[in-house]
């Protein structure tokens, strides 16, 4: 203002133009995001319906059949099962560990340890997924192979499949879920913890009965994000899942009576088949339908996580 005055030339109009351009820039950027989103949904959606219109596969057969044969028959039920069991098993591994990590950093760790741990988790968060895939391939798969072949008889296990995939996904989602859970716990007011301690609760009781429920909706947002990543992860999972058109698990005649072997998820199926699909072929269309299924599930997950975020108390 003062410089303007000293120059003796008011610059109000110039300022107004700059402001207008600024607003235009923001508005256009927002518009680009919306247009891109609509385009992606429209493009993937319209391609995906070709499976049912152009390739004349019935939706029921497509989603319920387990027979996937690129030349003759396309059914994706095993891959849906593969993806869902991957998500579930990853959560079984990742949620308790993430919660424990979050509780430790938020409530138990001494101050000097707290910040190094938080920084370490941030570093963890930035590791590219292909590295987890390699780690899974070189370390986890042989571990599982050796372990299963040691305890089981009658069948040879090659170590690939749902379990190493879930381990790899656990590594990937653990830092996300843990940091979000940590933030949710930090947001719980100190007064609440004090109220519990003042009633004669131990730290364990305060954590399990007051802190975790109070941070619950916030923790759930983290878990949903974890689900979304587990569902969408492709590269790391592709290294270790085995890429076979079988159910992730089955009964066996030999101890431990549950066979766990190579399988596929929706994402890895996409990855491994796209090269061979010629444009317009049933396989090509089917792969677009798989993409659309992934897209729709991720949209639902975002909505669910919004719902939890809206229920946050603190």
């Amino acid at each position, binding site marked *: 203002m003062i410089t303007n005055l000293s120059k003796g030339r008011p610059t109000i109009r110039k300022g107004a133009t700059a402001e207008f351009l600024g607003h235009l820039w923001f508005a256009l950027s927002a518009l680009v995001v919306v247009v891109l989103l609509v385009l992606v949904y429209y493009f993937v959606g319209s391609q995906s319906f070709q499976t049912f219109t152009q390739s004349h596969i019935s939706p029921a057969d497509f989603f319920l059949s387990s027979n996937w044969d690129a030349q003759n028959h396309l059914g994706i039920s095993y891959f849906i099962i593969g993806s869902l069991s991957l998500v579930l098993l990853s959560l079984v591994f990742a949620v308790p560990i993430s919660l424990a990590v979050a509780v430790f950093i938020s409530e138990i760790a001494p101050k000097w340890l707290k910040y190094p741990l938080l920084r370490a988790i941030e570093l963890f968060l930035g590791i590219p997924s292909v590295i987890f895939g390699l780690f899974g391939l070189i370390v986890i798969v042989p571990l599982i192979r050796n372990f299963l072949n040691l305890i089981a008889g009658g069948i040879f296990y090659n170590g690939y499949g749902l379990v190493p995939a879930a381990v790899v996904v656990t590594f990937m989602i653990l830092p996300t879920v843990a940091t979000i859970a940590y933030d949710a716990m930090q947001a719980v007011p100190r007064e609440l913890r004090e109220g519990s301690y*003042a009633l004669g609760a131990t730290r364990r009781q305060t954590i399990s009965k007051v802190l975790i429920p109070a941070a619950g909706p916030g923790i759930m947002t983290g878990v949903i994000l974890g689900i979304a990543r587990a569902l969408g992860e492709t590269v790391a999972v592709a290294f270790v899942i085995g890429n076979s058109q079988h159910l992730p698990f089955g009964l066996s005649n030999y101890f431990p009576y549950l066979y766990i072997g190579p399988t596929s998820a929706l994402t890895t199926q996409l990855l491994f088949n796209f090269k061979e699909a010629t444009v317009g072929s049933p396989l090509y269309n089917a792969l677009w339908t798989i993409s659309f299924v992934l897209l729709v599930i991720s949209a639902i997950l975002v909505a669910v996580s919004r719902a939890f975020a809206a229920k946050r108390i603190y």
Partner: protein
Amino acid sequence: MATDTAKFSIKDLDLWYGESQALKKITFDIQPNTITALIGPSGCGKSTFLRQLNRMNDLIDSVKVQGSVLYDGLDILNDCDVIELRQKVGMVFQKPNPFPMSIYDNVAYGPRLHGLATGKKRHRALDEIVERSLVHAALFDEVKDRMHKSALGLSGGQQQRLCIARVLAVEPDVLLMDEPTSALDPISTAKIESLLDDLKKQYTIVIVTHNMQQAGRVSDATGFFLTGEMVEFGKTDDIFFNPKDSRTESYISGRFG
């Protein structure tokens, strides 16, 4: 000396937050079934002192304590089970802090922790504890139709009475209250004040307040704190109308603090 009948007997209590001393040689007795008010300017150590009586200061790493606090003759700074102590010496905070759960679960929280409702009719027993505590805290009539609704939906004054009920439910012996009405409107404050008079028949109450009228209205004894020291302690009437120390007189008459 009245020491052997005192509820709390505090002697030469020093407390430091790291290097800075917050309490200096506090020495006085708190008698059973009385209301003791603690007054003094902001930052003089009232809350710190109160939180030492149920060892809430244990939660702060930097705190160091010296001296002795006897509760019913038991040295609570050294050999004492904090969990048991806090069950006996309950605390109500400045800001109502209900847990984000139902009204019922808030009150049942303590009894459930300590297994106070036992036997075959455990559920009935717990219901009774909850109802009795809410009645006692003069809240029951207002919440009896919404026991299983979230406590966060209550008004500030109701929340504070819920917090009192929550403490009463663990059958304490002493109630520590740190400015329990400072976040409340006059009507809620009046309700809690009349409640205090009723509660003192069963409990020993220590209340921190910035409100001189409140201290005058509700308390039997008053202690005046100044920069970590207990300047004067005595009958409330004496402190208010016949203070021995000139600093007490200045504070009471509103000349500083």
